[in-house]
């Protein structure tokens, strides 16, 4: 048997953080602050402090300002957003940590919106009672990266972490490869925190980095998944030709000039920037029935509000550039521009408890890896459907719980044993697409996956027949994964992203097929009613038979194995907010 050292670069650490976006940075900082003596390592596919989604658009932070009413907000969040599929204990804990998280940003030196006299600018959340909003600039990660570095966190950039290592029933770190040099890395860790995001199937341009690598890796080693059916966010209406604009819901019309909000949400109040599911389904119906394309037709007095209301220089500069580019290279101003509702996806189903521990010893999952799985959102994709300002907030708050929890565990735990044979198998699997001549190119597989994940007829306006049709198409992609071919290391990374995305799609579709009712963002045309008598339950998914053997995640050709589905009753009797 080969020793680990002959297989690749072996790095031993106490706490391994996978992902160097906002969540990973905060988790590292909090682990170090909990126990400065521990070694903390961030492994990031691109560059720590610039990676992920927090710097893309961003801006809003939603929080409980002193004087706000948490009970009113939680009541609204459970009844009108999560439809009782929330873990109300974690949601309550989250809400009560939001103000502290905003203060923490200020302490770190991130630029928050200010009033003329220098106080924090805040305003009532336009989408929920009892909650407030503020704004933060898009360079928010820079001071946190500096803080992490000052505390002695090690950064390992350009490392694509592919799979998790196991020692018996415990997670023992991860393996991955350098996307520039091709070096294989064996990262042995006492505690591992997944902070590498959700899956967006590379549909929307600012979300292309979210490929569900952590979700898939956790599933492959046997972690449980929860609320996977809510990996179907169609969150915004945008100009289809640019994937930008965020035109809202008020002034959408069909080809006959009918206002779609009045048609599908008669009598509803202001809809905000997020797209309600009834309207999304209505838009799809309009186009399918020949009344498209959908256009944005605001009254002449109203313009799309692009400019942030306060001085956040980096955000303003970025918006100015985007708008200039659209003016210069975009469609002529007289063009009739189609409005689309592109898929965000946000499959984020790693099941976690109140400290962000997964169901596996030694493994935590935070931010968009576990937003749905934490059940903070309930029957909504993350950020929970109509709750702008919660994506960054959930990332930093879940990180602030996971970091210290993982640090305490690592301080007590012995060093993990990692079996060389299992690692050798993983290494073969990691590099296999480079060895193949010919085969399936990752871009072809991504396109085939988008053909299933993106259309609303499969992923939003669901039915048994269409979900099964979608699953057959996902199966067809899955069958060809062993033929994926990479021309170089950049494309090798893409091959592994395809593996992750295929598994995420399957998790979402299988969970959606099991839930025979409609609730929140899960709409079944064949079961249009919400069924509280039978479905106050979470759908739980795990790999059939637990994890693969061999001391590591998988054998060659391991693409997740069979999925075992079950349900877990929600302890609604123990919660404050219950169906009336």
């Amino acid at each position, binding site marked *: 048997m080969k020793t680990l050292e002959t297989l690749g670069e072996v790095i031993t650490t106490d706490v391994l953080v996978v992902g160097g976006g906002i969540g990973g940075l905060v988790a590292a900082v909090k682990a170090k602050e909990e126990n400065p003596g521990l070694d903390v390592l961030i492994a990031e*596919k*691109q*560059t720590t*402090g*610039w*990676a*992920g989604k927090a*710097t*893309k658009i961003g801006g809003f932070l939603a929080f409980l300002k002193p004087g706000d009413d948490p009970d009113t907000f939680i009541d609204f969040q459970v009844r009108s957003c999560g439809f009782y599929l929330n873990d109300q204990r974690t949601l309550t804990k989250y809400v009560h940590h939001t103000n502290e998280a905003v203060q923490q940003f200020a302490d770190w030196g991130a630029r928050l919106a200010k009033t003329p006299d220098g106080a924090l600018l805040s305003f009532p959340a336009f989408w929920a009672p009892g909650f407030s909003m503020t704004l933060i600039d898009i360079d928010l990660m820079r001071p946190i990266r500096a803080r992490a570095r000052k505390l002695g966190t090690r950064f390992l950039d*350009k490392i694509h972490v592919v799979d998790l290592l196991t020692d018996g029933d415990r997670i023992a770190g991860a393996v991955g490869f350098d*996307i*520039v040099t091709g070096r294989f890395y064996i990262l042995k860790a006492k505690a591992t925190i997944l902070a590498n995001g959700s899956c967006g199937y590379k*549909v*929307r*341009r*600012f979300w*292309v*980095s979210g490929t569900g690598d952590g979700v898939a890796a956790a599933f492959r080693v046997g972690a449980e998944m929860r609320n996977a059916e809510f990996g179907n966010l*169609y969150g915004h209406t945008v100009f*289809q*030709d*640019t*994937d930008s604009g965020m035109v809202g819901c008020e002034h959408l019309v069909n080809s006959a000039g009918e206002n779609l909000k009045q048609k599908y949400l008669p009598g509803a109040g202001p809809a905000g920037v997020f797209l309600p599911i009834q309207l*999304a389904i209505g*838009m*799809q119906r309009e*186009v*399918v029935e020949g009344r*498209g394309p959908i256009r944005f037709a605001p009254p002449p007095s109203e313009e799309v509000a692009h400019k942030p209301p306060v001085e956040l220089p*980096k955000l303003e*500069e*970025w918006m100015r*550039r*985007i708008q200039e*580019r*659209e003016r210069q*290279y*975009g*469609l002529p101003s007289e*063009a*009739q*521009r*189609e409005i*689309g*509702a*592109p*898929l965000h996806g946000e499959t984020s189903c790693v099941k976690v408890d109140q400290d962000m521990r997964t169901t596996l010893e030694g493994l935590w999952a935070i931010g968009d890896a576990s937003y749905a799985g934490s059940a903070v959102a309930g029957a909504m994709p993350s950020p929970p459907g109509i709750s702008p300002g919660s994506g960054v907030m959930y990332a930093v708050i879940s990180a602030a719980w996971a970091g210290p929890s993982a640090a305490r565990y690592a301080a007590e735990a012995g060093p993990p044993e990692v079996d060389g044979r299992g690692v050798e198998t993983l290494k073969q699997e990691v590099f296999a697409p480079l060895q193949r001549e010919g085969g399936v190119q990752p*871009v072809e597989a991504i396109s085939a996956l*988008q*053909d299933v994940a*993106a*259309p*609303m007829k499969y992923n*939003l306006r669901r039915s048994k027949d269409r979900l099964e049709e979608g699953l057959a198409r996902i199966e067809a992609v899955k069958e060809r994964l062993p033929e994926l071919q990479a021309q170089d290391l*950049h494309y090798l*990374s893409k091959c592994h992203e395809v593996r992750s995305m295929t598994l995420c799609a399957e998790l979402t579709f299988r969970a959606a097929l099991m839930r025979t009712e409609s609730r929140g963002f899960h709409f079944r045309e064949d079961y249009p009613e919400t069924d509280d008598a039978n479905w106050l339950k979470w759908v739980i998914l795990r790999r059939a038979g637990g994890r693969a053997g061999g001391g590591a995640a998988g054998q060659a050709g391991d693409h997740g194995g069979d999925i075992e589905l079950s349900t877990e009753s929600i302890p609604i009797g123990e919660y404050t907010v219950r169906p009336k």
Partner: protein
Amino acid sequence: MTDNTTGLWVKEIKIDLDGCTGCKSCMRACFVDVIRWDEESRRPVVAYPEDCVWCLACECACPEQVIEVVPEIPAPLRSSY
């Protein structure tokens, strides 16, 4: 509106290497590995323009302002309908 037939989000990424100081800011700012580093010339290289989504983070990060990303419009955005 004509459809995007290229499957690409950008037409071109221009880096004026005469004005570039080789600080690597653009490479760090890229969240999808479009820009790589050329050890020989000590300058960035646009290695994977096919993955650029004109987030413009590289442009914003460049202290010399020598980068310009030219978008492809209409975009290859997968329709939900």
